[in-house]
């Protein structure tokens, strides 16, 4: 069973990491952040799987921290995103 769980962790990491490498060359910064987000979830899934494979309960704690802070870097990223270079500051009250 441990072998299968490690294999599944490897598969998930490989898929998400390769996805990230493809997207890193993308034009849109937002999409790169999306790929990092996916890698974060993939890493958490892999950690949970590896924790079950090795029966070391503390590995799950790392996954817990990753998921707690997953939205944090995304929030930090989107905040800076609003002042993209070249974007004229949007006039107020022009939302819709």
């Amino acid at each position, binding site marked *: *069973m441990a072998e*299968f*769980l490690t294999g*599944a962790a490897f*598969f*998930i990491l490989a*898929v*998400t990491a*390769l*996805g990230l490498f*493809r*997207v890193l060359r993308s034009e*849109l910064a*937002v*999409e790169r*952040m*999306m*790929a990092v*987000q*996916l890698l974060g*979830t*993939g890493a*958490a*899934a892999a950690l*949970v*799987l590896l924790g*079950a494979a090795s*029966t070391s*309960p503390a590995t*799950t*704690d790392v*996954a*817990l921290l990753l*998921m*707690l802070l*997953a*939205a944090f870097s*995304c*929030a930090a990223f*989107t905040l800076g*995103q*609003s002042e*993209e270079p070249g*974007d*004229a500051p*949007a006039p107020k009250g*022009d*939302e*819709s």
Partner: protein
Amino acid sequence: MSALADLFTLVMVAGGALLFLAGTLGLLRFPDTLSRLHALSKADNLGLGLIVLGLLPQVGSIAGGLKLVCVWLLAQLSAATASQLIAGALHRRKSGR
């Protein structure tokens, strides 16, 4: 009984792993950014969810199982908010132009 639990784990973890594959393919192949975001959330919600569900029979203690469920619940909160933030940033960029 334990063989049945192992089978359950096998099926669920394999399903979760496939959803990660599907999410990545969607991220690479879908035509526009918002649909790519949509593909992403499937892996976040369902992929991790199936894996956590599949691992539950393998955990020795109740506390360990609860912690796994907590990982998934936190992922729900994070993924939903992150998707909203990303979509909002996209929307603002488009309407700002």
